[in-house]
């Protein structure tokens, strides 16, 4: 991690994260729509998987493009999210030291 370039949130930017899951769902549904049982009697003749899949791919691409165009810049030093007692979970591991 160099000090000269600004560090962006990358894959963990919440928009990329949404984009990834919706994109995967979109691909699976599109494939189901093309090759799976279309079950047209249930949907009243519409290939629901295909259309939903394509729509999800578009939405996913939208999120990823947004994150690409206006990246979230993460400050050099981020305060560690404190152990939040309202959200019980295993305790935070101490933050690894970055080599500067």
């Amino acid at each position, binding site marked *: 991690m160099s000090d000269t370039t600004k*560090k962006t*949130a*990358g*894959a*963990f*930017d*919440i928009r990329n*994260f*949404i984009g*990834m*899951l*919706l994109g*995967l*769902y979109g691909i*699976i*549904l599109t494939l*189901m*729509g093309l090759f*799976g*049982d*279309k*079950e047209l009697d*249930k*949907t*009243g003749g*519409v290939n*629901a*998987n295909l*259309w*939903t899949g394509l*729509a*999800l791919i578009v*939405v996913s691409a939208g999120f990823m493009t947004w994150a690409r165009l206006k990246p*979230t810049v*993460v*400050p050099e030093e*981020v*305060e*560690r*999210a*404190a152990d*939040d*007692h*309202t*959200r*019980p*979970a*295993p*305790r*935070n*591991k*101490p*933050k*690894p030291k970055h080599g500067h």
Partner: protein
Amino acid sequence: MSSALTPAAVAAETLIDANAVDYLMVALYFAFVLGIGLAARRAVSDSIDFFLSGRSLPAWVTGLAFISANLGAVEIMGMSANGAQIGLPTVHYFWVGAIPAMLFLGVVMMPFYYGSKVRSVPEFMLRRFGTGAHLVNALSFALAQLLIAGVNLFLLGSIVHALLGWPLWVALIIAAAIVLSYITLGGLSAAIYNEVLQFFVIVASLLPLTLIGLHRVGGWGGLQDKITEAAANAPAEAAVAPAEQQLNSWPGQALSGFDSGILSVIGIVFGLGFVLSFGYWTTNFVEVQRAMASNSISAARKTPIIGAFPKMLVPFIVILPGMIAAVLVTEIVDLKNGGSPPGGASGEGVKYNDALLLLMRDVLPNGLLGLAIAGLLAAFMAGMAANISAFNTVFSYDLWERYIRKDRSDDYYLRIGRLATVAATIIAIFTASIAGNFSNIMDYLQTLFGFFNAPLFATFILGMFWKRMTPTAGWMGLVAGTLSAILVWLCGNPDIFALFELPGQGLAFVAASTAFVVDIVVSVVVSLVTEPKPASELKGLVYSETPKEDLVDPEEASRPWYQRTVPLASIAFVFVLILNFAF
């Protein structure tokens, strides 16, 4: 498939026929959610910390998380059940019962919360009124969380039952185990990511469900015709609301249970729109906390206001499916005609709560079905986990540490917290069976809100705007309010005293309104004869004692109108008025 292994072949038949692709959709969701939880715990990336650490998020993220934290069992199953049973008047839960309160929260209440940094309702009570109100509120809050966790668990269990066909009590235990592992594996600690994901997954599954359902019944016109026809042909003893009541939101007699249209409007506007909804939204810290994670007081105020826009549209993807189910799904049609079809998520006969699951079974192809199941599991799991953790916080810190064992080590309270989590999950299995007794889960929830939230809201709002209100009045108002609501409910319950009769959710509205009025009256009377707190202790807690500049963001005035709190709230308000007139 496995019918040979079980004694009763009917019980083993699953409600929903999921295949490998459906399970893949569910697994993918869990992989993302638990993956981010683990990554957060392991400190894999600064970016995760950036998104999870407090006060750094843009308002669109916290706004969606705010809606998502609420888009759980109540919204999805309860509203579709209500839609199936009484039709369009259910929209009042959104356009009267949510939006105005959310706007009020953003414009008026949020500055207090953001400024004073209180983390729970009992904490606010403690600082404003002292220990009496704190103890009463902490106890009733903990109890309410256990009961509501039971609702979420029951609905989660009903999905497990629908998928696997196991008896409901086994399904409940499995659902409880799923929630416990979700909490223990750290899923809850990445809540912001999960909630935003959850929102999109739910919309991505319910929107196609609604569109395909509408397509099947011949569009909005076809749905109207079919509901009209069904209402005309329904046997009199089924007491189905006439079609014009089911297809118009106002005056909403089918919802309030009043015969008179005017009384019905008053009941809905005061009971639901004011007492219940303001009580729910302004004191619900599970949701208020989402706004606390935003990056400025301005973003915190905009959180519920931005959330109001998607919230306005949610009824179209939850109530419409319910209404469609009532004319398309054989079992629900039969139920609405006064029949008692066997099966259903509880295994003890179909109920209105099953409307959505049954519609999914009838119209969604495999693939989309999996997406829908993932969305529902996610919503109920997160909802129950939030209830459990809210209980856990209040139990460990507000009750145990303050009143039972003081001054122990952090590890000690963490252990108590873990025990509380497990205990609450087990108790929820029992409260889930209470929830299962109600054919329409909304009746139950609104009753609970009337008992707990209505008096709380009265005490909150009076304490916030009237500096004379005393600590004694704080706890006495709460106790009197809750007791009066329970008394009204006992009198109106057909199985107990049966002194009067109000079908629909009218009884809950009346109980809540009574609680509100009694709380205000008792608080005012007691305040006049007891000693108030000195004004110096009320800064940041009472409106008149808080400097105005603490309540607004100085930079907000220089921003364009679409980034300012009040203009956004006004637009939302106009939209919701238009929706009310249109339907």
